[in-house]
């Protein structure tokens, strides 16, 4: 159903330049560097500082080549660094493959690099995958002529809680510092000292706290940078690498999962020029231990007569679940936003076919009816292949407007792509936000200072043209009228949710108003189309309850049963109400990875497979499908869809699939809805006023989310929770404040920021059980006072 991959970019005309490298003529685009032109003819010139995504620097000099003709009939008298030399028409290049001069030059550089490099390859993490080691073998001399004293430094120092630096191994290629300043915009590591003592360093009391810090480990061409998390844990040649897709946000970043004997040892960035290029966030890199915590569920459980949960066989659990749901009467489905599209599809079909309801919602967070309408009319089925906004569009757009979205925290690959665009000078970023964040500053962005609730007016006031891209975050659901204003803005629009499974859940109909493939529940033809595919007589025709309504209906006894998977009550609009609903439900079937408040309250608990144990697909914010295969084959670890199929079978129904492949085939067979889209029902803005401060909040990249459990070093890199206040409010209440809202009080260090008076910002899930559980309901206000007042 969903989507096909492919770029919308037209083929651009490029000027070609013909050069001769090692006797082979090759035509490459103008401005191509010789080192990359050589790759076209199959010659790998050794290199260290060169990186295709970093500006050329020419520092290591390893890539020297002989250029007998620069294209003007004259040669260079000395070897040239091919990583900084652009091709010229008629240029003749001799690499180490054909030129003794180039070969000797390269061997000479290699020898210099090695005189001060320790011979600790046998204990170095990089050994076996080390560009220095490899190229020393391919382009170096076998024996050293250096008999002097090597430069030494104390062995590794922490440059952050996660990243360690071994200065002896460093060849000061500057890849890491260039990444930090050029790509991430976090120049907290710098070259310090000079000459032979030159090294990478941080300032006193200022560690390398970048959300993207792990990338420097990956691009380090020696073993100088290692992570506390992976250091000394494995040898590269003992690892099996599997490509996958990161599950932490809606960017769909390509990753590589390195594993050994059934255990993930580390994760690296994959290389996907259309999506995340070669970079990932530290969350995507380091947050994978959550799947191996002691509270991981490994077998089904059913609630015994004594009220306790006891282990059960899979068939028994399926039968108990089916019996319970049948007995519960009306039932609903709540899924979190973490599901693969196939699993989401299974929930969607299960709700309609097995439970006969449209009471299903993936939005386990503050939501609105306006949002559901917006998703049906403006988001579902839109894909880059049909002209929807893509990552590369962010680079070509003149202006990108962010509303309700803080990309550095919520969609790291978007942040990096925007930074690339801004650095290249092609794109201007505007953010409708309560204050200028560090992320926005790094994007040289323009702030449209906006209090929560005023986003609709700010969007309406934008000067927008067809070259403007408007990225709206899921948080806009809580700002009445904002999504409607976005829909009417005339800009190219994209909705950026936080979770990897959110967009797939929209596509597969985990919404009360949408069936899979964008079929509106309200459209009889669409219902018939879906029913026909599924081989059922009819589908429920009334729009279902959204998540908040499901919770209310359970509490009110209007609903009896609940199938719930991947929901953390503390993420929901009203955590206490969600817990109460689970308590009130007559029968709860929980599908979960780990033991949670939900599983403890459930009647049947099914363990589900983590992403490593199953194939699947995430759909990016762009609408791009990102499929991945299982990393491990673990027969006891079942995807949600297999469990739902098992329950359905006990209800004497067949969902028509038991495997991911079968589900995916059915989804493709069903295809996208080709009828009319649902129209958006605009909602007017309604400004909230009242006493106290409006609360602006979002989740920081590194926070208390349960999928970040298990890596202390990673968690230590997070930003400490603070409350941000306007300068005048800060001056009035001082450095520590107590905020009190309708759900509780919290005391936090405060920081002044360029917020409007009357607004406070707090991180959503960095203290206690988070803002929604412990401080304030969505859209409500809080009071602030100095902690000592």
């Amino acid at each position: 159903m969903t989507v096909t991959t492919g770029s919308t970019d037209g083929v651009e005309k490029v000027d070609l330049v013909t050069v001769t490298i090692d006797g082979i003529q090759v035509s490459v685009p103008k401005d191509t560097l010789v080192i990359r032109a050589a790759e076209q003819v199959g010659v790998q010139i050794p290199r260290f500082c060169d990186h295709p995504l970093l500006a050329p620097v020419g520092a290591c000099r390893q890539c020297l080549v002989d250029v007998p003709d620069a294209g003007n009939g004259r040669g260079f008298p000395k070897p040239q660094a091919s990583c900084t030399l652009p091709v010229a028409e008629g240029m003749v290049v001799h690499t180490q493959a054909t030129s003794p001069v180039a070969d000797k030059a390269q061997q000479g550089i290699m020898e210099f690099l090695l005189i001060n490099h320790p011979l600790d390859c046998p204990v170095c993490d990089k050994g076996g995958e080390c560009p220095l080691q490899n190229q020393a073998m391919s382009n170096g001399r076998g024996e050293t002529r250096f008999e002097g004293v090597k430069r030494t430094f104390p062995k590794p120092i922490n440059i952050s809680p996660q990243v360690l630096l071994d200065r002896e191994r460093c060849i000061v290629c500057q890849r890491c510092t260039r990444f930090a300043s050029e790509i991430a915009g976090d120049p907290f590591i710098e070259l310090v000292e000079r000459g032979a003592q030159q090294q990478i360093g941080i300032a006193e009391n200022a560690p390398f706290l970048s959300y993207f810090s792990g990338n420097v480990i990956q691009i380090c061409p020696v073993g100088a940078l290692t992570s506390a998390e992976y250091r000394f844990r494995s040898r590269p040649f003992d690892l099996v690498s599997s490509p996958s897709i990161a599950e932490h946000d809606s960017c769909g970043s390509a990753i590589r999962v390195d594993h050994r004997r059934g255990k993930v040892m580390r994760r690296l960035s994959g290389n996907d020029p259309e999506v995340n290029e070669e970079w990932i966030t530290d969350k995507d890199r380091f947050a994978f231990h959550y799947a191996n915590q002691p509270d991981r569920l490994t077998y089904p459980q059913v609630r015994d007569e004594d009220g306790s949960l006891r282990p059960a066989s899979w068939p028994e659990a399926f039968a108990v679940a089916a019996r319970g749901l049948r007995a519960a009467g009306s039932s609903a489905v709540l899924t979190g936003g973490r599901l693969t599209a196939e699993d989401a599809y299974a929930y969607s079909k299960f709700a309609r076919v097995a439970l006969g309801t449209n009471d299903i919602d993936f939005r386990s967070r503050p939501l609105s009816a306006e949002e559901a309408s917006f998703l049906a009319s403006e988001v579902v089925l839109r894909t880059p292949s049909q002209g929807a906004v893509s990552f590369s569009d962010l680079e070509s757009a003149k202006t990108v407007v962010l509303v309700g979205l803080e990309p550095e925290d919520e969609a790291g690959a978007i942040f990096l792509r925007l930074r690339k665009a801004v650095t290249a000078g092609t794109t201007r970023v505007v953010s409708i936000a309560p204050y200028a964040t560090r992320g926005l500053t790094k994007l040289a962005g323009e702030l449209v200072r906006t209090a929560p609730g005023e986003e609709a007016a700010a969007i309406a006031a934008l000067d927008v043209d067809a070259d403007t891209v408007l990225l709206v975050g899921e948080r806009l659901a809580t700002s009445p009228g904002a999504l409607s204003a976005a829909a009417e803005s005339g800009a190219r629009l994209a909705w950026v949710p936080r979770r990897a499974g959110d967009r797939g859940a929209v596509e597969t109909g985990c919404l009360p108003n949408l069936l899979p493939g964008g079929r509106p529940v309200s459209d009889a033809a669409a219902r018939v189309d879906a029913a026909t595919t599924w081989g059922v007589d009819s589908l429920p025709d009334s729009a279902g309850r959204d998540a908040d309504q499901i919770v209310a209906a359970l509490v009110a006894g209007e609903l009896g049963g609940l199938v719930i998977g991947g929901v953390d009550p503390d993420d929901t609009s009203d955590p206490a109400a969600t817990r109460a609903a689970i308590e009130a439900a007559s029968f709860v079937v929980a599908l979960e990875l780990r033991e949670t408040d939900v599983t403890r309250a459930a009647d049947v608990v099914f363990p589900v497979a983590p992403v490593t144990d199953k194939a699947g697909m995430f759909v990016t914010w762009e609408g791009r499908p990102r499929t991945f295969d299982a990393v491990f084959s673990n027969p006891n670890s079942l995807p949600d869809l297999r469990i739902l199929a098992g329950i359905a079978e006990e209800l004497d129904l067949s969902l028509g699939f038991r495997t991911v492949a079968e589900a995916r085939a059915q989804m493709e067979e069903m295809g996208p809805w080709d009828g009319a889209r649902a129209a958006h029902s605009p909602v007017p803005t309604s400004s909230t006023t009242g006493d106290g401060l409006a609360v602006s909040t979002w989740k920081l990249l590194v926070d208390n989310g349960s999928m970040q459990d298990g890596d202390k070093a990673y968690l230590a890199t997070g930003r400490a929770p603070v409350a941000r206040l306007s300068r005048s409010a800060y001056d009035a209440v001082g450095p520590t404040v107590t905020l009190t809202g309708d759900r509780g009080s919290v005391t936090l260090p405060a920081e002044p920021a360029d917020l409007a008076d009357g607004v406070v910002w707090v991180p959503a899930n960095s203290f206690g059980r988070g803002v929604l559980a412990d401080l304030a309901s969505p859209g409500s206000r809080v009071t602030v006072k100095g902690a000592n007042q």
Partner: protein
Amino acid sequence: MAIDDKTKSELREIAARYPEARSGLLPMLHLVQSVEGRVTSEGIELCAEILGITAAEVSGVATFYTMYKRRPVGDYHVGVCTNTLCAVMGGDAIFERLKGHLDVGNDETTEDGKITLEHVECNAACDYAPVVMVNWEFMDNQTPESATQLVDDLRAGKEVQSTRGPKICTWREAERVLAGFPDGRADDGPAAGPASLVGLEIAREQGWTAPEANNA
């Protein structure tokens, strides 16, 4: 030690001399040294804050240039040129003598906090070799004996005159001038030392001149 508001405003004043504020960093660090006696992390953080860059970026600069000191410098920084020409002409002997006399090693400060001894690179006074610099003022044509006398005089608080400049000020005062805050001593000392004038004097004796202007 806290850097006071006057210094902070002077740091901003330096940054404002330039079309882009970061250009002020080198003189700003000189000013930090004039106040703090070295480059402190407080000074680094302050420069970073004023310039809107990271402390790591300032550190990178502060550790690159050899005039920036991370350990406290004495009232008088005594630099003995030991680059080849001065070394051969006696700089090595002077440096050895001073190390022994002051009982310090290279880049160390005497216990009384008066003298920091360092061997320096060529200071562009080769025609006055061997050269010693005191707080970056020229002390030309030194010998081990004259250099010993020089440091003794400095430690004793006697007035010492540069051979081509004014009375020696303190290192911190010198750093302030380098930060671009003149001390009014520009008119002290001669226009040129004897060696600078030897060619001119011969030309005068011989009646040699450049050709007459041909105002074509």
